[in-house]
């Protein structure tokens, strides 16, 4: 009986589903960004000092979208 009672309702809210969908794009984007940086450094190791700060700047821009989804999941009632 208790298992049935625990499994009866869909708990939580749609905010978390929204965040899950919002995390797909930045996940793919970060993979492309960091993968391309690794590939470029592999082709030309002396460009490491140039490419790494650019990767971090790009990382900031891409990650903000996923974090906006995370924050809005809490803020919007």
């Amino acid at each position, binding site marked *: 009986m*208790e298992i049935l009672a625990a499994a009866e309702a869909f708990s939580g809210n749609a905010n978390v589903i929204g965040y899950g969908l919002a995390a797909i794009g930045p996940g793919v984007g970060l993979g492309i960004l960091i993968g391309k940086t690794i590939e470029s450094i592999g082709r030309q190791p002396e460009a490491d000092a140039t490419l790494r*700060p650019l990767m*971090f700047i790009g*990382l900031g821009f891409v990650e*903000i979208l996923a*974090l906006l989804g995370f924050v809005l999941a809490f803020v919007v009632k």
Partner: protein
Amino acid sequence: MTPPTLLAAREGFEAPGAEAFYWQPWIELHVAGVDISINRTILTMIIMITLVGLLFVLGARKGRLVPTGAQNVVEYGVEFVRNQILLPVMGPKGLGYLPYLVTLFFFIFSLNLLEVIPGVNFPPTSRIAIPGFLAIITYILFVQAGMKHQGVGGYLKEVLFPPGVPWYMMILLTPIEFVSTLVVRPASLAIRLVANMIAGHLMLTVFFLGTAYLLDRDLTIGFGILAMLMSSALVGFEIFVAGLQAFIFTILTAVYIAGSLEPAH
């Protein structure tokens, strides 16, 4: 011998929510209707910035040519900001901004580290007021730098009406440029830092409380040990995130100021 599902359904694990970020005020202070009470967050922030300030003051006292002791540590920090953040982005003409960028980097880094320091375990930068104010300062800095170098009207014209764009595209482009440069930049700086710190703090809290919950009950001790190992890995990850977010905030500040100093288009 009841299955674990029934056990969990009966006793329940209380996941932390928004109340994990609120601390009761210890000393109530109100100035002209503004609530500036001192609670645990403010106290730890004051202690941390006193310590970091002390480190820098001790490092700058005897300026030896070959640094030792505190001066060595401080010089390492200043040279990191100078060579990795300022010079690649702004070039030598931006060296006037070095004091602010060093202060910004070490302020954010030390406050972020409070999340993993045992006993404190709460980053003041997860409250929107602190990153919000830093973002406002950065906003004022890059708008003021642009207006000083290109004049008030010149800077707004360069931002809102990029040269070389036909007039029919301007109708679409100007609101987008306005929002993207003058609204999204400071907002995203603040939200990036706050959301990273909130997510990290919630993750660590869930893992620590979950480890205690799992270790408490005989049936799940194995999972409790796994959770403890994962918590340790997450503490290391949070130290990395603390440094990374300080670096990103500082380097984006430098990028925005550099973009105002020389017209991009």
